[in-house]
């Protein structure tokens, strides 16, 4: 009788089969089960279909837009706002229109996030930052300052509460160079201006000085009353500084500026004054509130910074 196929297997195969046929030892069985279970879980995860999106609108919402809900309460509020009447009185067409608009808006908002508008658009960044600040400010509104706190704030910021000054003056200038004054040198002009100042202080008229020394009105101010901020704007910082310390009827020293040598004749001066607490308290109240809000915002930023990881590129500082 010919030998069977099994009988023809090499002895080594017999040994392997023999080991497999033996009951597995516990130390090998448990890891094997674990591996099998892990593979099974992985297979299920890989091959089962992705979880389906929620297809029903959850209670409390009127619509889902890409899984983002539109609150029923917001829908009612928007409908009432747009129709000017109670929600129950809105027609189906009105409700549909409002809902359509709200879905459009939600789509645009979602698109804005996809486009990363907070990163790329200044207005969006500003409004987001303002929104956070509004949250920080909100609880402070309920904290009522005392009169003592307002007064202390006023005392520490007195310079801020000034009534605006004003001035009425002539600004005479002796031009240097140019077609009409080609022969005029700065030194000569300064000498003439000093003489003119002397004449004016001695009682000579402006017309006399103009005629005798060649001064003209600079054109920077007219003979009307100017508030300080306007006078500064028109005269320039250098002339304004000289003008602001003149009293009624006083004449300035000659002032060299870009267009020649100026002489200022102050007709009427009302210097700025620090307002009394009682007069300024409305402004003080607002400023105090603003200062408190700023302080809270700084505190909020301090907390955010303490929790943030901020890395600066080499050579950068803040």
């Amino acid at each position, binding site marked *: 009788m010919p030998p069977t196929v099994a009988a023809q297997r090499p002895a080594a195969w017999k040994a392997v089969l023999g080991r497999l046929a033996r009951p597995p030892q516990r130390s090998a069985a448990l890891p094997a089960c674990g591996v099998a279970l892990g593979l099974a879980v992985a297979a299920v995860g890989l091959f089962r279909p992705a979880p389906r999106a929620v297809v029903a609108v959850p*209670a409390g919402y009127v619509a889902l837009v890409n899984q983002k809900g539109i609150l029923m309460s917001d829908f009612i509020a928007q409908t009432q706002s747009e129709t000017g009447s109670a929600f129950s009185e809105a027609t189906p067409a009105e409700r549909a229109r409002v809902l359509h608009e709200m879905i459009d808006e939600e789509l645009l908002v979602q698109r804005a996030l996809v486009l990363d508008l907070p990163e790329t658009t200044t207005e969006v960044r500003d409004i987001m930052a303002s*929104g956070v600040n509004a*949250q920080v400010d*909100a609880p402070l*509104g*309920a904290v009522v300052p005392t009169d003592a706190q307002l007064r202390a704030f006023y005392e520490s910021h007195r310079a801020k509460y000034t009534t605006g000054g004003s001035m009425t003056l002539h600004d005479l200038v002796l031009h240097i160079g140019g077609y009409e004054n080609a022969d005029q040198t700065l030194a000569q002009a300064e000498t003439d201006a000093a003489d003119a100042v002397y004449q004016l202080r001695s009682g000579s008229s402006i017309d006399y000085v103009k005629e005798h020394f060649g001064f003209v009105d600079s054109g920077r101010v007219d003979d009307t009353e100017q508030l300080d901020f306007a006078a500064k704007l028109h005269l320039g910082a250098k002339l304004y500084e000289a003008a602001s310390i003149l009293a009624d009827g006083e004449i300035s020293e000659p002032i060299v500026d870009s267009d020649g040598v100026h002489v200022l004749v102050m007709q009427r001066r009302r210097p700025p004054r620090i307002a009394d607490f009682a007069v300024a308290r*409305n402004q003080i*109240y607002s400023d105090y509130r603003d200062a408190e809000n700023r302080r809270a915002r700084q505190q909020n930023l301090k907390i955010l910074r303490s929790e943030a990881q901020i890395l600066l590129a080499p050579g950068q500082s803040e």
Partner: protein
Amino acid sequence: MTRDHKHAALVRGAPGQRVLGRASWVGLLAVAVILLAGGAVGAAILHLQHSDTAARLLAGLPDEVAADPALLRFATIQARPLFAAHCASCHGENMKGNPRIGAPDLTDAIWLYGDGSVYGIERTILYGIRSGRSKAHNVTDMPAFGQRGMLSDGEIRELVQYLLKLNGHPYEGEAAEEGRALYYGKPDCGDCHGGDARGDSDYGAPDLTVNVWNNGGDPQSLYDSLYFGRHRIMPAWIGTLSLEQIRALAVYIYAMSHRSEALRVGHAQAVASAMGEP
């Protein structure tokens, strides 16, 4: 007795003691399994019922909920612990408010904002008052007329006398007349509170004629309101509480503030339960 003997006795039973047989153990085990299964099924049914009622609580329009006794009962049961945990610290355990911090009485059916409907109450809970969110109630606030120097001390006192008169309290006649002239004059109180002083719930301007004062109605409190102004806030609860919890609170507060009406329409049991009455 050695330890081995004790162990053997526990397993086999002490001499003369009857020991449960294997069949009895199996029976006991079966009973336990049946009880556990029954409990699980019962809990599942209760959970489903809760889920169903919770869904119904939110599914309808806010003001329809209060008309359903079952939902009203469900809402009050849900809302009571929520109110105690989140609202009572300002409005009080009894919902009567706290004039010291301007927290209004929620049981008097007089509302600073809105009309006291479930929707209106829910809206306030969702987004709050001056909470820093643009959907919150935040049209205006009571100016600090004294602190801002807009009214003198004497003028404020005259206005206080006029308010006392409006609410049927003893007042000084001449000062009240001056106060009345002021009401329509410099501070233009009627701009917010209305020409008839009945308030405007769109602005959150209270009715000055019903003797209900969130910040106190005594002369000193009225003076303080005029002098320091009022800028009360309420947090927005959206994101902190679930929509279901907010709806439950709104329904509960509505029921408490419309208690007589609720009783009239047959919600007596739910309301009594909500009030903690037997």
